[in-house]
């Protein structure tokens, strides 16, 4: 198996694991991490596309991967704030019940 194929299969596998975890895991922070993992899988796939054999790697996929990483960072930031709010609300509710 060539390096290219290895990267592609690994990327696909990681993506599937990540998406599955996002759907199935309960804890919010873990889901968020799973989402990041899934995105990592897609990035791997993209990087595999950058392989041009002997020549210089293709810059377009790399640019897209960078964009994707930035996007995921922003998304993760928002998600953390929201997750904190949700947990705060749950804590407040528990207090009220007690």
């Amino acid at each position, binding site marked *: 198996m060539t390096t290219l194929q290895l990267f592609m299969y690994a990327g696909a596998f990681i*993506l599937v694991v990540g*998406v599955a975890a996002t759907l199935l895991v309960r804890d919010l922070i873990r889901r968020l991490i799973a989402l990041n993992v899934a995105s990592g899988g*897609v990035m791997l*796939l993209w990087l595999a*596309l950058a392989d041009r054999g002997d020549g210089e790697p293709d810059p377009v996929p790399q640019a*897209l991967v960078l964009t994707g990483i930035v996007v995921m960072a922003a998304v993760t930031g*928002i*998600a953390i704030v*929201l997750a904190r*709010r949700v947990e705060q609300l749950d804590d407040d509710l528990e207090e009220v019940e007690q």
Partner: protein
Amino acid sequence: MSAAALVLAPVFLPLAVGALSAVLPRRAAATLTVIAAAATLMVAVLLGIAVLDAGPVRLEVAGWAPPVGILLAADGLSVVMIGLSAIAVLAAALVAAADDHFAGGHAFWPLVGAAAAAVNGVFVARDVFTAFVLLELLTIASVALVALGGARSAAAALRYLFVAVTGSLFFLLAVALTYGHTGTVDLARAAERADDTVIVGAIIALTVVGMAAKTALFPLHSWLPAAHPAAPTAVSALLSALVIKASIVILWRIVEYFGPLTDLAAPLATAVGVAGAAAVLWGGVLALRRDRLKSIIAYSTVAQVGYMVLLVPLVFTASDPQVAWIGGILITLAHGVAKAAMFLAAGALAAAAGTGRLDGLEGTISRMPWTVAAIGLAGVSLAGLPPTLGFVGKWMLVQASLDAGAWWWLALLLGGGLLTFAYTARMLRATFNPPGDFSGARELTRPARTVAIVPLALAALSVVLGLIPWLLIDVLSAAPMGGGA
């Protein structure tokens, strides 16, 4: 000013205004946003005239031609959708300016600017990379907008985030496939170079799944009835009327460019149609059973999304695909205008009555007749009854179904309107006076006049457009789908 420069304006103007709004006080931010929306509407009109004259308006950003540079192009679809975006933002901004409660806080203004810029950008994008970036911007802005609804909306916003980003990842995969197979992200060039049926089919399938998640197409819809009602009123209006249109447009673009290239397109299109049918039924039935105004309207959106994707199978089976395209686009437009009207009116009603529950709305029809009338009129347009724009779209899709001999889509189109009107009537009935009470004596905090007029004006717009649809159809036909930009 050349027509080409006009293509950039709907993207950069809201962005600039949004950035400024972050630092300006509320009044100034609101005024700027309103002015920018009105200006965008003017730009849409000018673009429409240009398109009628000479077909699609193309702009190569900074003079760099694809595949190196970014191509933006305004065809008929772009023009009418930018028009919708301007109108929706204008209406939401006016209502949000009248009462901060409807906006959810100062963050509303910059976020709306970002969202509007992203949406307009998607409408003129012609390559999948630009589309991806803009869709991400839109997702971030929309999630934040939902979260403006207070602590309780955080869970709904987070759920929206997860679904939307997962959808993005699927789309990103589709982009990867496109680039890997054709060596370019530009839609037109990729379509020329693609030659593997299975890969093209996979691209379409992945895009469908990704966009279905973002547009809340059944069965990936469950985030919407949680998120849209949880958001502040002006945000709900924008989300239903505008934000979900961006992902639908990308879905359509992929179908437009890649559909003709593969045999797998027809079965995929049928699958999309089936999902749409399920959406119409599921959304309609659930809307009939909910007890809160905004919940009903949110499920109504779920149902209407089904209609928006219905054009996909029809495009492949009708003898004149343009009828299907134009009908579907008009239905989407009608939905945007009507849904914005409905959410804004419902928000006003709920704020005045102190509750969004149906059983708390008794008697509101005497005190706020115009607001209730707006809901009724909007419902008429959603149900596709004359003389509204929704009827025009429905007529054309009915013709396309008859032409294609597709009895099942036909039944869906004809029957779905009944469901729509049923839940609209349910909302209207709830506002009637309790028997014996004729004075409408219940006390309501009357909203500002703007808040009563704007929804009604929107609903009236759907009637006006329904009487002169040839205008929109001419624009859509001058630069039709599948015409290549």
